[in-house]
């Protein structure tokens, strides 16, 4: 049984376990299909390069969904995500090694939520997506 954080156990500065993602063409194609997104830069390498991208581009909203997964995997199924926000600073490309890291930056005892600061980075440390999230933690029984 996984021990998810609660308002009793969470501490300022707690770090979330790093989440790694790497996607190949087939996964990006599936995401295009599942999100009804026909934008050519996400499956056609020649077209993506014609538009000035170095390779097939990872969808921004896919990285947004990885962000929500990163937070809810940490907080568990009984948590409730209240908000997320992110900025797309640079593009991720097919085959890139991507890492999500984050920590607790504030604790709101009144409504039982915490605020998280999160970054998605490439293997070389360059920042792709700075983000924030607030999540209401599981209530202890």
């Amino acid at each position, binding site marked *: 049984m996984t021990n998810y954080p609660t308002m009793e156990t969470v501490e300022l500065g707690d770090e979330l376990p790093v989440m790694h993602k790497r996607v190949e063409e087939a996964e990006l194609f599936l995401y295009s299909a599942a999100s009804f997104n026909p934008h050519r830069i996400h499956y056609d390498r020649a077209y993506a390069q014609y538009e000035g991208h170095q390779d097939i581009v990872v969808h921004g909203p896919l990285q947004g969904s990885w962000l929500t997964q990163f937070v809810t995997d940490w907080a568990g199924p009984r948590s409730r995500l209240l908000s*997320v*926000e992110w900025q*797309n600073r640079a593009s991720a490309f097919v085959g890139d090694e991507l890492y999500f890291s984050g920590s607790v930056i504030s604790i709101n005892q009144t409504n039982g939520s915490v605020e998280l600061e999160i970054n998605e980075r490439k293997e070389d440390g360059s920042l792709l997506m700075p983000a924030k999230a607030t999540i209401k933690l599981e209530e202890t029984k």
Partner: protein
Amino acid sequence: MSSSLIPPESLARVGEILAGPITVRIDSREAQRYAYAVGDLNPIYFDEDSAKAAGYRTLTIPPLFITHALVPPKPTEALRTDGLYKDSATVTLEVERMMFGGEEWDFLEPVCIDDEITGTTRLLDLDQKEGKKGSFVRLVRETTFTNQNEQVVARSRQIGIAR
């Protein structure tokens, strides 16, 4: 001072509805395809008992799926060369390229399978700014999502950077 990248007729559209209202019933197969495509295998999206144990009425969905669930079916004749649809929601700007700047989401009520979700998208803001690489336009679209009980379940603000 550089010239305006925002034609007056585009500026006049701030506040206007760009898309919707469109109503869609949330489908479990579509939501699960999305969850698999993301690689988010949270049991509350796949297993009804897990969803109920977590306090949901029935299966819930990956939070951002709601925006994709509302994409209207369109014929391939509406596709442009870049693969995007010719879209009445496009705001005319004197720029070469629109980039995806980021998003902001508020989640207010749970969304479950078979909920009837209505989405309405407005042009919230258009603002010309000066950056290191010259002038750019920050375009903000806000979508409000309501359910069959007329509760607002989520709001998203999508930020586009055009230069």
